[in-house]
């Protein structure tokens, strides 16, 4: 598998800088490690920043264990790249401005609103959508609890909730129901399945997010 960013795992910020520099992974890693931290050290002047766009650029994304490349304009959000260009549709577009949580994906295990970051920023990160929470037809404990306790009606918000809840349990398997609820505070359900979600959370907290 080819990873254009190499081993650098400094998160989405550095990823973009590195992308803008358009240089090799190792050089970028060095520059990132030194430049912002040691402004007084004399260094060779940085090459002028390279702009991208407005035309399409090739973006490589690691999604649900698969490496995918696609030409998209730099203005395309991670959400739109996943949905419109890579046909990964578990993340939903609802508010499209970082309020409702329906577009939540895991970026290196942390929940992020994929509508509020650009696809080119997410290169090199491990991206997981709700579709990753099923293996060989067996559901992960979180989506399984949503089914068992009927914590979904229309289901359009559900993949976002499921991903956010998975992240909350991964962060703290011993989390209390209140702490899990806090982890879901960035998500909105319109059908009103919160009571059933609480039933699911109560059961999941007993098993530390592992399910029955």
């Amino acid at each position, binding site marked *: 598998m080819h990873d254009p960013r190499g081993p650098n795992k400094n998160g989405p910020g550095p990823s973009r800088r590195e992308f803008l520099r358009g240089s090799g992974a190792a050089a970028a890693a060095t520059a990132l490690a030194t430049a912002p931290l040691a402004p007084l050290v004399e260094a060779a002047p940085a090459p002028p920043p390279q702009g991208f766009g407005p035309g399409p650029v090739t973006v490589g994304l690691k999604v649900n264990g698969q490496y995918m490349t696609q030409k998209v304009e730099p*203005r395309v959000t991670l959400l739109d790249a996943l949905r419109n260009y890579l046909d990964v549709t578990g993340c939903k577009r609802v508010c499209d*401005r970082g309020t409702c949580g329906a577009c939540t994906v895991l970026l290196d295990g942390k929940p992020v609103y994929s509508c509020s970051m650009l696809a080119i920023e997410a290169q090199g990160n491990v991206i997981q959508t709700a579709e990753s929470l099923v293996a060989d037809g067996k559901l992960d404990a979180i989506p399984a609890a949503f*089914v068992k306790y009927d914590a979904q009606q229309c289901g*359009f918000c559900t993949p976002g909730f*499921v991903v956010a809840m998975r992240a909350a349990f991964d962060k703290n398997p011993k989390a209390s129901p209140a702490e899990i609820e806090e982890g*879901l505070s960035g998500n909105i359900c319109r*059908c009103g399945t919160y*009571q059933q979600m609480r039933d699911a959370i109560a059961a999941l907290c007993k098993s530390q997010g592992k399910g029955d």
Partner: protein
Amino acid sequence: MAYTWPIKRRLLGTKVARLDGPEKSSGRAKYSFDINRPGMLHAMILRCPYAHAKLKSVDTSVAERTPGFEALHRIAKDGAELNYAGDEVLAIAADTEEHAADALRAIKVEYEQLPFFVKEEDALRAEATAKTVGGRANVNAPAEPSVTGDIDKAFKEADAVVEGVYGSHAISHQCLESHGLVAEWDKEGGLTVWCSTQATDGTAQGLARAFKIPQTKVKCITHYMGGGFGSKFGPDVQGIACAELAKKAQAPVKLMLNRAEEITAAGHRPSSYGKVKIAGKKDGTVTAFSIESFASPGAGGGAGVVVPYVYTIPNTSTRHTNVRLNYNAQRAMRAPGHPQSCLLTDCPLDDLAAKLNLDPMKVRLKNLPASSEESAKTNKTSYAAIRHTLYTEQIQLAARLAEWEKKWHPPGQGPLTGPVKHGIGMALHTWGGAGGAPNDVLVQIASDGSVLVQSSTQDLGTACRTVLAIITAEILGLEPKDITVRIGDSSFGRSTGSGGSTTTPGVSPAALNAASAARDSLFEKLAERLKAKKEDLTIEPGKVVDKANNKSWSWREACARLGMDTISGLGKWTSGLSNNGVGGVQIAEVLVDTDTGVVRCTKVVAVQDCGLIVNRLACESQVAGGVIASINYALFEENILDRVTGRQVNPDMEFYKLGGIEDMPQIVVQMMDMPERGVIGIGEPPCISGAAAIGNAVFNAIGVRVPVVPFTPDRVLAALATKEGKAST
């Protein structure tokens, strides 16, 4: 023969996890918004930015040269009157969404701005001849109120009279999957749409009419849909535009509304306000109710209320004014008219109870509608025939679950001494929820024992798939997971739209008839091959039994005898298996912070009848969801219109508030299973009385009426400041 619901129920009324749950919760379910067709284009709509304007000219010459531009469809012609900010001008399609947005920005439109009203009170204050919406009068009211009994005498002879203003602002459906579709024409001139709709059948028919093609050439697919709440019927403006663009571009086209469009152009629950005067006797009998109400359907036709709601009051006077505004047309939203009517009746009722120094629960029990002996003659389990007994039982049950006797206190005299005050309140509701024709269901049994149930109906989140599987499995002695369910495709026959809580009571009788017909046909086919009489054959869990000879075959074994044959049972909706009319009671508890004005709902008890329960799990979830919709309505939601620009200032999800999980109270749902009544719909009733119950709980907490929902901190503080409860809408 007429089939009936089984007396002994094995699956019906139990808790069955929804069959499509795994697909949905793991993001694999494909909604209309998720459909990506090969070569698909993306479309967007250009909308009028003004509340009222004449479309003078449109210049698309630059747009048509932007990269990726593919097709254009004019919706409004030059010279057309555009009646609200968000009214459609044209639609374009391009190869990517980004290019579609570019093309839209490159279009130059000239408008002539016209006078407008976006606030009810402004239109009411204006000249009576004002016509700012499509040339029709803004304000319409009957000259005289409609009167029953002797209202003046009743007010004169009353022991207490209360006057006040009550009401609710407009809210948006906020369907998470916005309105929209993917449209694709085939080489034979057939049209397929993947549409987020509450009516696959109706949408296909609407498109056939619009494009003058045979109904058999149009297919509407809705395998999954992300919420409708009453706002998604028929092809709609974007449906026609999308299919036009697909035809012009000769390519599949996707057109889904963005969030701002969803809120400002796809319907809303109308506002409703009323000046109410209510009177009663010392014993709690309500003797008179008069109301001057007004409501706005936006640019739509009308927005009515049903008042007084539920209770029987002998002397009434009602006059309702319809106020058209330059705002998108109202659409049905979960129990249209009822939450408003409940607020306009149940809140004044509590204010009267307070003036009479009575427990409002006892006042309710005193004024319940009588059960109708006349109705009992034709349908002894109809709502009208049983309502007095039903409500009495429900109030008693809810009061017990909410510990009403222990927790209720006279308004403003709760036990908490700090700035945070406790309150408890109650309200009642009713709804129809009758199913009807046409609803066709097909059940097929194959020789390997597999069973298919098929209907063109759609699942809005009510677990309709699972409903069909439960009924089929109940009749054939199988488990719901054994049944293959195919729905959400208009080519599967006729079905009614999912409005008015009619889907479950519409498809359930048809499914019972289809499964029973398939079973009888199976017996007929097998009798000779099993050396049995068909009258002796019966179903037990997992097997076919010959009662006469005490022999049995496993289901698969029996079906294997079909050989080359396949069994089909077609069922239609027939009367007698469903019913009309439910009652419900909700009790809410709140904590009101009198320093900040913040209301927190801490507990809701919902007691609900829905006749024969098909799936208890989904039913309870539906009721809890309805309660949550009421909490949002009561505390958070509001479409805020700006009278200067004529636009909505919060067409989004950050300034348009919806509660999250941490905002929600403990919700106790108590279903009344009444199988003798047949199936009755449940989608709407639980959304009705919660807001009024919360309103009454706030009144109970602080001893002053907050007149208009949502009970936001500013309104609570304003009410506390006046201590008179005078409304400011």
